[in-house]
């Protein structure tokens, strides 16, 4: 049985689209807007954006500055080859007895010569120039690794596990496989976190997930967001609203800025209709303020009296466009402000980096609907302790402060353990529910 398929967007890569680029098992993940003639760079791999246009999202092979779609089956074969030394060293676990296991497991026995330590360079017969030359000639990563193994003096003396590790490390370094994917909140969160956690207030993807769940963000909800996380929280809320409800985004200045995560999700108009940017100034004044502006579209008309007709028309068109955009902004802002003043907001999310959450609470908390969820994220625990005291004095129930560790595991047969080191910077999440007396 096949379920009804929901309406879907084009499955091919289009010019102007934001995309996530990462190497298979790579350390980095980049968000790039693919435009014609653009060079895409990822961990020393380079290709032109044009070579990806019209191809479906997924796995690519890079060679000669071009990328070509590649089947996953081939990749899986290659990955299995990396495990080959382990797989081929025959070991029948059924027959191993306790006595023999210490000495006879061929995978862990260390050859005596391996203990004679020599500098890494001496062990590798293949010169770096030769490697670079091979790369220039377009030798595949796979063949390059085979050559490196051949040239490695120490390879045969390694344990089988160590051989597999060696191959994996080299394969990763010389891999020319990239994933080009449509952005998702999960991928965006990871990419920005890896790039510069500080600008994201150390917000990890797992904590973002927790914030959304604690705030109960679903289709049709009204959510107020104040954040300093590059638009990540706002964008995640917009996605979960799915075109109904509202996400009031409280921002500084005249126009919401520094929110790349909202722009790079390629949202359609309907989804974006719930995005309601509201100026801090208006929240402070408790009413909608007119735009202060130097441009006066209608005064220009008079001045342009003597100018060529065509030019005047052009300016007028531009002004009309600016005016239309501004009116749309004002409309959305009005909706946002009404949602606050009419006490219709079901959730408040604060994700602050420098702003004290209490100064947001003072303005917004009294306007939340009763039973509203409040979720505050901060990289600083003491800031949340103060916010906790503030909320506890105002009849907020179910107050919980949590911290969490997200541990990544290396999973390989007989070699499974947590990673030796990983990104751990993060913050704390405070949540509660507003209630009223009477």
């Amino acid at each position, binding site marked *: *049985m*096949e*379920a*009804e*398929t*929901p*309406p*879907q967007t084009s*499955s091919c890569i289009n010019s102007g689209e934001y995309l996530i680029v990462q190497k*298979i098992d790579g350390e980095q993940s980049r968000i790039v807007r693919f435009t014609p003639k653009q060079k895409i760079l990822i961990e020393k791999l380079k290709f032109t954006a044009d070579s990806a246009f019209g191809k*479906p*999202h*997924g796995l690519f092979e890079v060679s000669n500055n071009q990328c070509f779609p590649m089947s*996953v089956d081939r990749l899986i074969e290659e*990955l299995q080859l990396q495990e080959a030394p382990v797989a081929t060293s025959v070991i029948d676990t059924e027959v191993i007895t306790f006595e023999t296991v210490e000495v006879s497991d061929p995978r862990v026995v260390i050859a005596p010569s391996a203990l004679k330590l020599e500098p890494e360079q001496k062990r590798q017969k293949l010169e770096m120039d030769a490697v670079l030359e091979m790369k220039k000639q377009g030798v595949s990563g796979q063949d390059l690794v085979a050559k490196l193994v051949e040239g490695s003096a120490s390879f045969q003396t390694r344990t089988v596990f160590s051989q597999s590790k060696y191959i994996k490390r080299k394969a990763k370094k010389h891999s020319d496989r990239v994933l080009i994917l449509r952005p998702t*909140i*999960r991928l965006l969160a990871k990419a920005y976190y890896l790039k510069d956690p500080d600008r994201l207030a150390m917000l990890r*993807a*797992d904590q973002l*997930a*927790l914030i*959304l*769940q*604690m705030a*109960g963000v*679903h*289709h*049709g*909800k009204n959510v107020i967001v104040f954040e300093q996380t590059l638009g990540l929280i706002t964008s995640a809320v917009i*996605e*979960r*609203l799915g075109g109904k409800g509202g996400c009031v985004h409280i921002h500084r200045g005249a126009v919401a800025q520094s929110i790349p995560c909202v722009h790079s999700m390629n949202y359609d108009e309907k989804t974006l209709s719930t995005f309601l940017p509201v100026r801090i100034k208006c929240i402070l004044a408790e009413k909608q303020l007119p735009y202060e502006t130097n441009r006066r579209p209608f005064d220009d008309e008079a001045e342009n009296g003597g100018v060529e007709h065509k030019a005047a028309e052009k300016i007028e068109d531009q002004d009309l466009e600016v005016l239309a955009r501004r009116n749309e902004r004002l409309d959305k802002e009005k909706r946002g402000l009404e949602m606050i003043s009419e006490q219709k907001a*079901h959730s408040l999310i604060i994700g602050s980096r420098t702003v004290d959450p209490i100064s947001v609470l003072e303005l917004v908390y009294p306007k939340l*609907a*009763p*039973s*509203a*969820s409040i979720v505050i994220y901060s990289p600083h*625990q003491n800031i949340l*302790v103060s916010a*906790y005291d503030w909320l*506890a004095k105002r009849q907020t*129930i179910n107050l*919980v*402060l*949590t*911290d*969490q*560790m*997200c*541990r*990544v*595991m290396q*999973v390989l047969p007989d070699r*499974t353990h*947590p990673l030796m080191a990983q990104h751990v910077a993060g913050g704390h999440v405070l949540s509660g*529910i*507003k*209630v009223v*007396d009477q």
Partner: protein
Amino acid sequence: MTVEPSFMLYEERIREGDTVIVYVTYGQMVPTVVKRGQTLMMKYGALRHEFIIGKKWGQRLSATAGYVYILRPTSDLWTRSLPRRTQILYTADCAQILSLLDAKPGSVICESGTGSGSLSHAIALTVAPSGHLYTHDIDETRTSKVQEEFQTHGLSSVTTAVVRNVCTSGFHVENSADGVFLDVPAPWEAIPFAAKSISRVRGGRLVSFSPCLEQVQRACLAMASAGFVSIETIELVPEQKKIVTQHRQSLEEFEEIGDAYPKERKRNADGELVENTERVSTAIVYPYSQPTHTGYLTHATLLPVLE
């Protein structure tokens, strides 16, 4: 036209038929369907349902022996208060699973097993109104119970509960899902079926929850041979904290009174009560004993098939 009660209707006031979460204390929350003539009995005595109808969500109400709060159900509150028939997934894991599945309104998600429906509710609320949840369990009593709950909670139109062993018979839908979640004892048996249920043109995500590393190892191998990429295993360890006020004791004070807890107010030289200002709020880990392991979450991507 009367609108059926639903977790996804955000009316200001409570109506008959609504599911409310009665908040008694931090540890005690009781979900109740409001019905005239019924009475809720709990720690703070009795509360007649008549008193709940027409009240605002989030309002404090007097019972015969104390106060309670009537809360609007959310995915998290449901998880914390639902009638448990099995071991359940808690909010930290549910949140992470939704994110790993890239779940959003419109997603088609397959889940096995249903259990007590904690994650099922979280998924249904996230994919509504245009997506769908297919939840599978081998136990008929579980699926029918959860189906009843979906009915009461206004989530029937976005959910289908099926009695089925996904490890032997696969999923209810094929070539349709955007995400598959597995919480089964032998996930490696279900993984090839999971790959089949995922949409070929859109590709999709797979998340498997297993308490033991041995299960994780076999699941990872099965995922790789079923064509999944970007396979990663993570573990979440949440830590709950409590805010306490802490007195900053000086050495002199300690010499004088020992480590006895100092009074919040003390008398000054004139005999007046003054606040002891040397107090700071601080967070401590509490309760002292907390869950440190629930399960490993292994997640992977199935890329769209090239034509």
